[in-house]
């Protein structure tokens, strides 16, 4: 995917040249097991896992050994009794169109990825790359974080998505996502300067039996749970008179930054509006 605050430099460099970038691959590895993929990643020089490659091609990275996970059967959504399993190579377009995903959480995950550029782009970019890279502009991460989502890493094992996001970077391979199939109601909102652009702010909200969660993303740094506002949402009265207050609490407790798409102040104002809309939808308030 394209760059945001952290890598504006390479973004502009890419645009001003206008020609082909110098992304290179020395050798390609197509391992048959995840253990082998991890071994190559750790042992070989300048090794990198290939996701959808839409972001990699924008840069000038010289990859010694590119590791392609095609043979690992990770491009799939599978339903288990209590969990839904999403393989790392599943594309955003699959998330958008998969019936099982659409039928859960009020279609939250599909709605979250719909504004990402276009159909042809979403057919390429992968769930694993967007989550593992912890992109601030990721439209998917906030929605996943609003659900009970776990990340399965080749070496690090299984952990809550929130734990994973807060850990420092460590070489590993994201193998699958696991989402608990509860009866959570959910909704998301995003705001962009124009259709198919990066979001200026993303919001995802969920509610399950008195347990509310409000997530704010593209601040522009990575998505986080607004803890105080989430606690307030958990206590939401059925007649919901306090939605504006919850939205203000979320806007006050989060930190926002400025980048080329919008200022911190603008994001804080947007946060109030988007949280209000998403909470109203989840709580089915008028």
């Amino acid at each position: 995917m394209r760059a945001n605050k952290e890598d504006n430099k390479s973004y502009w460099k890419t645009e001003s040249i206008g020609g082909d970038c110098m992304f290179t691959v020395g050798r390609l590895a197509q391992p048959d097991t995840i253990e082998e993929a991890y071994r190559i990643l750790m042992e070989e020089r300048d090794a990198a896992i290939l996701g959808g490659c839409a972001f990699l091609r924008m840069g000038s990275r010289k990859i010694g050994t590119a590791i392609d996970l095609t043979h690992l059967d990770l491009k799939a959504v599978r339903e288990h009794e209590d969990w839904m399993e999403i393989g790392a190579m599943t594309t955003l377009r699959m998330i958008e169109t998969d019936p099982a995903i659409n039928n859960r959480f009020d279609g939250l995950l599909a709605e979250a990825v719909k504004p990402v550029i276009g159909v042809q782009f979403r057919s390429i970019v992968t769930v694993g790359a967007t989550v593992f890279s912890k992109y601030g502009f990721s439209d998917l991460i906030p929605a996943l974080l609003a659900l009970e989502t776990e990340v399965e890493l080749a070496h690090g094992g299984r952990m809550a998505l929130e734990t994973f996001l807060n850990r420092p970077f460590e070489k590993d391979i994201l193998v699958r996502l696991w989402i608990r199939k509860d009866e959570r109601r959910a909704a998301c909102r995003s705001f962009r300067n124009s259709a198919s652009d990066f979001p200026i702010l993303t919001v995802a909200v969920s509610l399950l039996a008195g347990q509310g969660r409000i997530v704010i993303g593209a601040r522009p740094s990575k998505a986080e749970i607004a803890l105080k506002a989430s606690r307030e949402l958990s206590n939401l009265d059925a007649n919901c008179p306090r939605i504006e207050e919850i939205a203000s609490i979320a806007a006050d407790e989060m930190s926002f930054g400025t980048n080329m798409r919008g200022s911190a102040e603008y994001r804080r104002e947007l946060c109030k509006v988007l949280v209000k809309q998403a909470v109203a939808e989840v709580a089915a308030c008028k």
Partner: protein
Amino acid sequence: MQVEFVVNGKQAVWEVPPDEFLADTLRKHGLLSIRKGCNTSCCGLCTVWIDGKPTLSCSVLSFRVQGKFVMTIEGVSEEAAEFARILVAEGADQCGFCSPGFVMTVLALKRELVSPTDDEIVHYLTGNLCRCTGYLGQMRAVKTYLGVTQR
């Protein structure tokens, strides 16, 4: 490395470097309908079908089409010509640079969506940029082609 796949209905065994993208490989083999308009994976000009799904060929590494079916506009020329006539009649075609990618996306839309609404059409075609004509003419042409009621 070698990649074995089907392009426009014909079996192909091509030698590709591991870091070459499909748009470049296809052009090298004479499929000159493939254009690159943005270099940032967002304009839709290089759209081809991989296993029937519209995909940005500028962002797919060529080795990844191993065993797959790739279709460019050269492989669906009759259908493309039918839509192109409507596009021209609606005044929605000018320099033509974006047309192959746009047409491939419209033909894919016709296969995937049944009686789509305006919103569904716009959603499917978002990410296909045209700098000459404007999107209203394109919308009229798409709806005429799909046979959905003009609203």
